[in-house]
């Protein structure tokens, strides 16, 4: 095998692209979980966003409209989950799993006539001067706008959760919904908005897969990315900047295994393909091992618990 064929510069540049869909889905799910809701339907919302975005981009010829449609599609699907869990108090785990199955089926139905079509392309933003910098140029300054948008979103969410009153209310609702209610905050409304935001982010992540990363439509094309996004939220101990780290770590493993396959590493392809998932599992086990101190307390205290105002 020829490892010299792997260029570190290109590897890192590809890594940022590969990580973007997971990063979008994970940062959305982080907001949802901070508000105390466990939505396991990320995979379903991603793939629904993927087909909605793809279809609209193909019909209108505008990738931007496609991304908007992807976000709306994901958000609408998440509202099924929101209404069921927040108003009818269904079990969040079961409802989330159902949402994934429903999203996979729905996207397959919607996407029947879009198989094998090429979507309109999204140009890379070539920032003059900066993109010519050796090494750093191609890595940092030669991407499509969604990559930058996603990074800005992560920083914005970090800031909002940490410093703004809105973020404080979201955390309060996820931490102790009874107390938040007693103080007069609208627990269900806050959670519904968080769920919709998470759905929109997951939809955008799906749209990025079908419009830029792949770019075409195939059934089940998210291939578990939603589950990895869920794992990354736990890996990151519900901290936005660590989500970024987790997503890049996973993106790195994905790209590395593709490069190793191309370089002809003498290991069956299947092992390489499974490596990102194995690493996800290992990371999850390490992170969730019992330990002393504050780290184990990072999960919002009301995560996954149904809220019903008793008075």
């Amino acid at each position, binding site marked *: 095998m020829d490892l010299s064929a792997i260029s570190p510069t290109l590897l890192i540049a590809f890594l940022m692209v590969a990580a973007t869909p997971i990063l979008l889905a994970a940062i959305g799910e982080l907001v949802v979980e901070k508000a105390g809701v466990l939505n396991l339907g990320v995979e379903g919302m991603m793939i629904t966003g993927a087909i909605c975005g793809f279809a609209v981009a193909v019909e209108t010829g505008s990738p931007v409209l496609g991304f908007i449609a992807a976000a709306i599609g994901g958000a609408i699907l998440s509202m099924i989950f929101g209404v069921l869990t927040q108003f009818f108090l269904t079990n969040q785990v079961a409802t989330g799993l159902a949402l994934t199955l429903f999203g996979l089926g729905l996207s397959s139905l919607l996407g029947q006539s879009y198989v094998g079509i090429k979507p309109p392309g999204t140009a890379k933003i070539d920032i003059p001067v900066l993109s010519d910098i050796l090494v750093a140029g191609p890595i940092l300054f030669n991407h499509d706008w969604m990559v930058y948008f996603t990074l800005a979103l992560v920083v914005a969410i970090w800031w909002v959760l940490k410093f703004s009153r809105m973020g*404080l209310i979201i955390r*309060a609702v996820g931490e102790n919904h009874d*107390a938040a209610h*007693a103080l*007069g*905050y609208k627990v269900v409304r806050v959670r519904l908005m968080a769920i919709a935001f998470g759905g929109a982010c997951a939809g955008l992540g799906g749209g990025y897969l079908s419009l830029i990363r792949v770019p075409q439509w195939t059934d089940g094309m998210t291939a578990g990315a939603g589950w990895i996004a869920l794992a990354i939220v736990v890996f990151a101990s519900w901290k936005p900047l660590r989500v970024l780290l987790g997503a890049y770590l996973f993106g790195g493993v994905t790209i590395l295994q593709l490069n190793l396959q191309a370089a002809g590493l003498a290991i069956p392809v299947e092992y390489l393909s499974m490596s990102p998932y194995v690493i996800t599992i290992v990371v999850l086990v390490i992170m969730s091992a019992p330990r002393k101190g504050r780290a184990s307390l990072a999960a919002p205290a009301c995560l996954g618990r149904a809220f019903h105002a008793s008075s």
Partner: protein
Amino acid sequence: MSTPLLEIKGLTKAYPGVVANDDVSFTIKSGEVHALLGENGAGKSTLVKMIYGLVKPDAGSMVLRGDPFLPPEPRAARASGVAMVFQHFSLFEALDVAENIALGMENPPKMADLAARISEVSEEYGLPLDPHRIVGDLSAGERQRVEIIRCLLQNPKLLIMDEPTSVLTPQEVDILFQTLEQLRDEGTSILYISHKLEEIRRLCDHATILRLGKVVATCNPRQETVRAMAEMMVGESLHVPERKPHVAGEIALEVEDLSVASPSAFGTSLKEVSFSVSKGEVLGIGGVAGNGQDELTAALSGEVLVAPLQVRLAGAGVGDKGPQERRALGLLAAPEERLGHAAAPDMSLTENALLTGNVRENLAKNGFLDWSSAEGFAERIIEGFDVRTPGPDNAARSLSGGNLQKFVIGREVLQKPSVLVVNQPTWGVDASAAAAIRQAILDLAAEGAAIVCISQDLDELMEISDRFAALNGGRLTDPVPAQGLTVDQIGLMMGGAHDMEVAHHGAA
């Protein structure tokens, strides 16, 4: 002093099957401490929730300082100058003090300014508090300071306090009362809810007594006896548990050098706890909530396993045995949390009776459940302990707190334990049911069982205990005879007032 601050006229609120408040009227004057008295279920909580805007009344009206007042939500109530300190703290454990306080304010200042204000106000009222500490690390008394300061920062005209002293040591109660008296002198009215009548007599200028949702009496608590007020609340004369003189028997339960790490992150680990209880004796263990009570209950019941000899039953080590094995040997326990720990909420009373009774009552034969015996056992509990329920098929959740507590205690008492461990046996139970539960515990001791009663209700412990010890930060004081113990001594055993100091506002 005599202008009315809040007039309540004919407030009525009905829930399906129960009228929580029925035509309630009374007046709170400016600068008075007004007590709202009543048993559990008398409608006190519903009434204050209406004043605070959490519940909308079905009928009636309120007038605040001459203007009609009907807050649609707590924000509106806060804006009108009504603040509330909740019975179960409405705090967020993972957030810090300043964030918790900001959440209770309408227009919080910037975090840095807020932290400075918190330090300032807490200093002024003798309630020291570091704005940057995480609330989960604070003691119960400190948590209450967070709630009080949250209210004080909004300059309330009316401060509602729902059972504020249930989690405080006697010394902390003194300091709280000084703070409240200072507030009253500054012109703030306080609506004080409690069923601790001695406190009401000390603090309050006026009392309104609710029974079954109706105002049944008003009085000046300084001129009434505790017993008279208790009978106004209950509406009948009270039965005081009788205690037979106890002859020291042989040692039934011994705990030696028990150290247990708390299973929960915000819990308290037990440190070198040692005590013994002899047959026929009641050992009362007091202490402010969160000082290791749950951990001690778990270690005694067998939920948490320890070295065999750390817990000895009649001389034999049982520390490494689980709850069912200990039950078989005669060590039974009734934990604090009724719904979810002592009883499974969605299971029927028969099923709940079977869950702890199957070993000693032979309710399972060859691996098959004996439903008719289990139902018989449940019926004996219901009958023997006056549990008000249509029958043993009803879910545990459907019972009121007091009735379920009678069921949970009765279930253990009827199994004739040689050692019974109870944690908060009468928490949230009305006075007559509490008296019945205490009587059952005393009767069991008279028959020769050793009792460990963990409770935060000092009056209860003084009433039933032969010896008293206190848990403080996971350590147990040496047990002392309960007879003749003064409140001050108990308070010191419970850890005194920690770092609180008396309000020195205006003194400077």
